[in-house]
């Protein structure tokens, strides 16, 4: 069975962390961007997140994900820069387009917040084997069914990417031009969507049949493969993250 995920196997302290702690970090870092919604603080969180990506040896792998979200970010900047209701202070103009300070400020906070989210999620997904994460969650009481749904969704992206390569190959083999200028590539892309979705659905269906056949639905208590894995300093790190969030709240209220 195809078990490709976005997970990048590396030997790093981040990889050895408990998936739940990483999940906690995702929640905490996003929460902090709301508790302290100023560019300076969010910048700090962003810095830490990217530092962790570097320590986890997955910074390069996170770049495509970050780039992809840049599209979203860019449109945010444009829309907020023009149309934010608080816009009064004119900052600069490109031709007839006027950018306002207030809108850009809001856009900046939004952009940085999105970057924190994307960065933190990348950190979690790139350094955590999905089955390890789901096993941890199930042990903490999450329903195995939900666990499987999470696994399926996380596997869907790389699975679709693999299917896309296969179908592109099949189409090229039969004379569809996919190489060359942008127009050619764009034209080649649309006929792919149908087959890729169909193929992925088919594979997902086969996987759920395989799971059922192997007693996934059985009411018995499940035994886990990676039972023995230990996470040192687990409590300490989790405590630290929680502490920082509480500190952030205190800072916000009394600072």
């Amino acid at each position, binding site marked *: 069975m195809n078990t490709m995920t976005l997970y990048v196997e590396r030997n790093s302290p981040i990889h050895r962390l408990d998936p739940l702690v990483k999940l906690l970090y995702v929640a905490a870092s996003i929460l902090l961007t709301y508790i302290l919604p100023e560019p300076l603080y969010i910048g700090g969180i962003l810095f830490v997140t990217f530092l962790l990506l570097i320590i986890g040896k997955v910074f390069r792998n996170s770049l495509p994900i970050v780039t992809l979200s840049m599209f979203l970010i860019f449109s945010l900047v444009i829309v907020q820069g023009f149309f934010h209701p608080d816009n009064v202070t004119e900052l600069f103009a490109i031709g007839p387009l006027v950018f306002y300070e207030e809108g850009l400020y809001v856009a900046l906070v939004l952009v940085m917040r999105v970057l924190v989210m994307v960065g933190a999620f990348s950190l979690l997904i790139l350094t955590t084997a999905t089955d390890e994460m789901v096993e941890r969650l199930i042990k903490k009481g999450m329903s195995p069914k939900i666990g499987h749904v999470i696994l399926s969704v996380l596997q869907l992206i790389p699975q679709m990417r693999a299917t896309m390569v*296969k179908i592109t190959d099949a189409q*090229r083999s039969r*004379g*569809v031009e996919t190489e060359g200028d942008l127009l050619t590539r764009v034209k080649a892309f649309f006929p792919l969507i149908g087959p890729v979705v169909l*193929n992925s659905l088919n594979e997902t269906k086969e996987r759920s049949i395989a799971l059922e056949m192997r007693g996934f639905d059985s009411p018995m208590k499940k035994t886990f493969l990676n039972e023995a894995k230990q996470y040192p300093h687990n409590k300490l790190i989790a405590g630290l993250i929680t502490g920082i969030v509480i500190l952030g709240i205190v800072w916000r209220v009394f600072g």
Partner: protein
Amino acid sequence: MNRFKLKDIAFSYSPDVSIFEGLDLTFDSQTTAIVGQNGAGKTTLVKIMKGLLKPSKGTLSIDGESIADQTAAQLAKRVGLVFQNPNDQIFKTNVLEEVMFGPLNIGFSRFEAEKGAREALKKVGLESKVSDNPYDLSLSERKLIALASILAMDTEMVIFDEPTTGQDFAGKEKIKAIINELKAEGKLILCILHDMDFAADVFERTVVLNQGEVILDGQTRDVFPEKNVLEKAYLEQPYVTQIAQALGYNDSFIHESELVAFLNNKK
């Protein structure tokens, strides 16, 4: 097409594991079987020949003319590849459309494409399924659809990646007949196989690939008696060859009919 030549080919999927290093191979008018254990690099080899994968080093040429700067789509007019897994190849929701897809792309008119598609479907014995959805057919039928959709393109060279897996006796006989017919039409035939009996029975030349290297290459009759080399590549000899050897005959037998005639003569 008379000759497809690979020279000094190097290829790897990831920087640390190389699949081929300096591979030389030439395919000519003889029908050729490529055998080798799982992961030997057979599929990778044919994807390189088809232009789907680009070698990091070396040259590919057809009749002496380099094809390095041709895209896979351009090559599609000349080289057809039937994929190992039909699910990787089928993407239309109707059998006739599926088979017509290739011909239409390489410049056939709708009329020619449909004619070619119907003929190809007839060759694989699925002419009654023209309006079915390929996903509703069995795996062996889908393999034949995939085969038909390449036949319909009428390319000078046809490459098969394990066409016989999942086929029963009748299916194999069909494929054998198709290969012989293609050869009679003067096409270049290359076929990856796990089925040694089929390789021995149908192909003139056999190439044994092991970990990206050619460890045996010659007339099928000369290749299959090489028990020791085959074992190195974890391959079995064809049953006829095994039986003849077990009976103590040293001649090389690769067709059942040969052995039968030989035994009849001795009586």
